[in-house]
């Protein structure tokens, strides 16, 4: 607790202080940064750091790919298409082995039990993401991706960004809930810079990871995403990720087909996820060392790449080809199967990376094939299979992640084509509800569940008032003058000022609401002291109270903070509504 304000006894001094306060009040009120503004500042800094780390990783991936293939091409698919058949087999195999070796060394030399997974750190952890392990995992991912592994680089981009945010939070010694928010901002910045999609970056974290769009959380996420995107655009321009032909809805009747496509995506997506998990669990049962497993995963990709180099990488250029209709449907069907096998092999072998972009390709491919069928038999001459590819991509994403709003915004931001928004919304929502009615869990929820759902409940039980208490709340003594009370309100910008004895014994609060009409009454400085304004009917918390008690208190209390007392009634600190909300956002049933 801060030292309570003492009470000078000079009436004239009190009055002049009050008059000064009156004159300066509007300016000081305007200038003083609030907690949310400070959080937004750090969210912006996190966005910047996230974008820089993403750009560095992108550069390193391209450079490593050049070292592997000796070809400076626009993408992985192109560089693999340009090399000999035996190189297409050898490079992913060696890259997979190297990636596995890095993971083995990481497990061998770093014994710390800190989590490396950003999602785990945000949802069930304390917001701390191990820097060394994250860097080693990213190095492993670098080997996998640059050697043609069929996996997305958004995984390491988000991981690195969240790691930077967590590191910043630890350096600045923020509270545990705030550290989780920082890590979440880092993840949002990573997604935003990976896809040049600021809205989707914020929505990905709020809808999938945190399960809440409360403004105290969503605001910083948006801020971080925007700064990350603006920073990225300094490096790579502001063009959308996919340059697509213009698609227009020919007639309202076409919407029926998009509705059917949504249903189909809702059925296929859980099957796709189930297949990936079966491969992963089968590979996990093998006793071979991880570098051998990952080398084998690379070998499968390499063998497929001999005929279909499109399977290499995250599938970005393949999606582009599908959207522009560069492949006949027969070839696309074969590439789709090959891509599904290669992604399963890479993901199942334990490679570090994301399956977000590969999922987009599977959705686009399925949508294109569906569109081709509609074009052939649907009776609509103007139907473009490419448009179905686009909607299929969104619907498949919505069904796989169970985050339809994020999916709609992601496709919109990837293409910046407003014409597609109506069929896109329809397809995504239908896919979401269809997938929800089938067995199986969402892409990321399954990941978290496997990390131990019991840990969530244990964590929730462990969250008490003590964990989210901010120490050293400002307070005044009962003899503090009216001028001192006004100055304290101005400095704190809270609605309630705590009053304590010199021993720290909590007496009650002074409400700003009670006195705000009289701030312009300097004469009161001689007569009124804190004790005269004391309210004792004020909610209090104790350190061992659970989170549920905090919300009970706030449900019947208009203030932003509630004081925390020790069992003897001494003021220990305060709990803010914002910190309680942050802790609430990490509840397991909302993960």
């Amino acid at each position, binding site marked *: 607790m801060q030292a309570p304000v003492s009470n000078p006894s000079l009436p004239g001094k009190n009055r002049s202080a009050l008059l000064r306060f009156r004159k300066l009040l509007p300016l000081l009120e305007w200038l003083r940064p609030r907690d949310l503004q400070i959080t937004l500042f750090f969210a912006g800094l996190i966005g910047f750091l996230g974008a820089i780390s993403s750009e560095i990783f992108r550069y390193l991936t391209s450079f490593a790919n050049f070292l592997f293939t000796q070809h400076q091409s626009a993408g992985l698919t192109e560089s693999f298409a340009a090399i000999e058949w035996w190189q297409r087999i050898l490079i992913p195999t060696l890259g997979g082995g190297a990636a596995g070796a890095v993971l083995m060394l990481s497990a061998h030399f770093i014994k710390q039990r800190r989590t490396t997974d950003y999602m785990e750190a945000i949802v069930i952890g304390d917001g701390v993401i191990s820097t060394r392990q994250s860097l080693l995992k990213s190095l492993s991912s670098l080997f996998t991706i640059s050697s043609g592994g069929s996996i997305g680089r958004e995984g390491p981009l988000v991981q690195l960004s969240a790691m930077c945010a967590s590191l910043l939070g630890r350096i600045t010694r923020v509270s545990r809930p705030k550290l989780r928010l920082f890590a979440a901002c880092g993840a949002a910045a990573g997604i935003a810079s990976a896809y040049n999609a600021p809205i989707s970056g914020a929505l990905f974290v709020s809808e999938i990871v945190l399960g809440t769009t409360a403004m105290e959380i969503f605001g910083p996420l948006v801020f971080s995403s925007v700064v990350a995107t603006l920073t990225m655009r300094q490096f790579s321009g502001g063009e959308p990720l996919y340059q697509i032909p213009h698609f227009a809805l020919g007639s309202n009747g076409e919407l029926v087909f998009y509705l059917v496509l949504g249903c189909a995506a809702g059925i296929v997506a859980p099957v796709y996820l189930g297949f990936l998990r079966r491969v992963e669990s089968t590979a996990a049962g093998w006793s071979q060392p991880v570098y051998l497993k990952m080398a084998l995963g690379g070998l499968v990709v390499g063998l497929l790449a001999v005929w279909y180099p499109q399977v290499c990488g995250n599938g970005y250029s393949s999606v582009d080809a599908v959207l522009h209709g560069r492949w006949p449907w027969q070839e696309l069907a074969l590439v789709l199967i090959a891509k599904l096998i290669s992604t399963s092999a890479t993901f199942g072998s334990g490679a570090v990376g994301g399956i977000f972009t590969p999922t987009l390709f599977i959705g686009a491919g399925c949508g294109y094939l569906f569109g081709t069928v509609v074009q052939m038999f649907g009776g609509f001459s103007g139907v473009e299979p490419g448009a179905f590819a686009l909607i299929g991509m969104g619907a498949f994403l919505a069904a796989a992640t169970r985050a339809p709003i994020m999916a709609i915004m992601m496709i919109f931001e990837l293409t910046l084509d407003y014409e597609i928004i109506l069929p896109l919304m329809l397809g995504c929502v239908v896919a979401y509800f269809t997938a929800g009615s089938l067995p199986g869990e969402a892409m990321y929820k399954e990941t978290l569940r496997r990390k131990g759902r019991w840990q969530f409940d244990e964590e929730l039980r462990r969250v008490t008032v003590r964990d989210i208490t901010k120490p050293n709340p400002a307070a005044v003594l009962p003899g503090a003058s009216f001028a001192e009370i006004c100055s304290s309100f101005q400095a704190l910008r809270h609605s309630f000022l705590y009053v304590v004895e010199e021993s720290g014994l909590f007496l009650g609060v002074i*409400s700003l609401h*009670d006195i705000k009409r*009289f701030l312009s*009454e300097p*004469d*009161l400085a*001689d*007569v*009124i002291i804190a004790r*005269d304004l004391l309210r004792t009917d004020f909610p209090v918390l104790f350190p061992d109270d659970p989170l549920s008690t905090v919300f009970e208190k706030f449900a019947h209390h208009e203030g932003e903070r509630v004081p925390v007392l020790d069992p003897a009634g001494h003021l220990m600190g305060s709990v803010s509504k914002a910190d309680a909300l942050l802790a609430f956002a990490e509840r397991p049933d909302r993960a």
Partner: protein
Amino acid sequence: MSLLAKQLIERSCFLPALASTTRTGALGELTPGLGDAVIHPAEFFAEVEAREAMQSTDTGRGIAFPHARSESVKRLALSVGRSAKGIRFRDSQPPVHLIFLLGIPPAEIPAYLECVAWLVRTLREAGVYDRLLRAESEEALRAVFLGMEGKT
């Protein structure tokens, strides 16, 4: 003059000549003047004394505002006393000639502040303090305040 302050003055008790020469004695004289607004006068009196002990309400200009927010008070009430000789509230300050004893229910903080602010503001006006000292009766004392209507 606010309606609240006007009602308070109209209801209040004025003692133009306090007999006591000590703070405690003066407060003892003034407390009954609060009438039925105070349910337990002894408890209220003790709380006023405690408040004075914590920090004197003597303004240093011959006026004091002893008061207490108390469960013993059921409505805002005022009792005004005048002492020609003066009463020492604080040794370091000149004697107090006008005492305004306020009883305040715990919940009525804004009403209490409004009345105190009005009293202090009124007493700062030129001539008011002297007129109060010169007023010859309870009615004359009350009239000084009520005569301020429309001026504050």
